[in-house]
């Protein structure tokens, strides 16, 4: 993405995200009270984040690659299961990948 395209995307995406927030403040309450709508929104969040985990962990261009990212993700999962705070989880994953790469893993 060129710098200009990135800027356009930054501004447009920010406007979209703000518009969604504002709509929530303007619509009558009962419009969004439908449980199916609320649940679907929550599931969309889960699906997007899960897909992003997978893609960030193994995708490289159009290929699926197993490298230092996967063991790092496993370490992050263990840290999360032990209720480590967000920052600790992220740092542990980075350290794991950095260490494995220093030892010669891709």
């Amino acid at each position, binding site marked *: *993405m060129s*710098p200009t*395209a990135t*800027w356009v995307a*930054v501004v447009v*995406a*920010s406007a*979209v*995200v*703000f518009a*969604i*927030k504002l709509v*929530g*403040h*303007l*619509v009558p*309450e009962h*419009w*969004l009270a439908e*449980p199916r709508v*609320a*649940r*679907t*929104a*929550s*599931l*969309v*969040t*889960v*699906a*997007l*984040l*899960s*897909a*992003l*985990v*997978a*893609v*960030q962990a*193994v*995708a490289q261009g159009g*290929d699926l690659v197993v490298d230092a*990212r996967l063991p790092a*993700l496993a370490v*992050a999962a263990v840290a*999360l299961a032990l*209720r480590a*705070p*967000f*920052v600790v*989880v*992220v*740092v*542990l*994953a*980075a350290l*794991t*990948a*950095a260490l494995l*790469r220093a030892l010669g893993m891709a």
Partner: protein
Amino acid sequence: MTRVSSPDPQRDEVRAAVRQALSVAVATGLYGVSFGALSVAAGLSLGQTMALSLLMFSGGSQFAFIGVVGSAGTPAAAVATAGLLGVRNGLYGPQVAPLLGAHGGRRLLAAQLTIDESTAVGTAHPPGPAARAGFWWTGAGVFALWNLFTLGGALLGDALGDPRRYGLDAAAAAAFLALVWPRLTGAQGRLARLVAAAAVVAALATTPFLPAGVPVLLAAAVAILVGMLTPVQPPGSGIQPDPRAARDPATRQDDEPEEGARP
């Protein structure tokens, strides 16, 4: 939370809300460092990184945006992914708007500050001054610290150089895992875990064939199908401001009420 009796219980409520707001703001703001560093690692400039934290101001959407940009996705895919992850903020509005009663410019400001954390803290207190204090202090506190720490992280990321050497690419995956984790655990997470598994399969199976960013959107389509077609559970499981949505699992433990999800 224990409430001590005092001559002015309402003021105590407000004070408790402000205290809670500040602790949430510090915890959330801190991981703005990871956002700043990862954004620069994904190829965004310092200015673009700061624009995201100032203008978009929604952690999940921001991480998703830089994730798509970093994997060479199209601008359209980046906008769509960030927008879809911002949909839940739209569902928070109807919950906080009646508490705030804001109009005009204040309403615009309230909208911008409507995120997981401000909604969780605001709705955790009885309607009135405490709820308003909880929302505004959390929103403003997170906004200030999130942006400050984004700047710090971006400068740090710039200084580090090759992001892979420091495992920052793995850190991005871990950040998404940490964001989704609270939504997968707990009693009500069964359907969520199912959708998560389907999303992972759909995204990875199509990665070799579709342009970057599109497999992630396909996963969202799976969720919409499941969400609209699966029978709805008894009332009450619906539009509660899911406190587990708060970004930082750590703040969730002591600050926010859970509806029976915790033993």
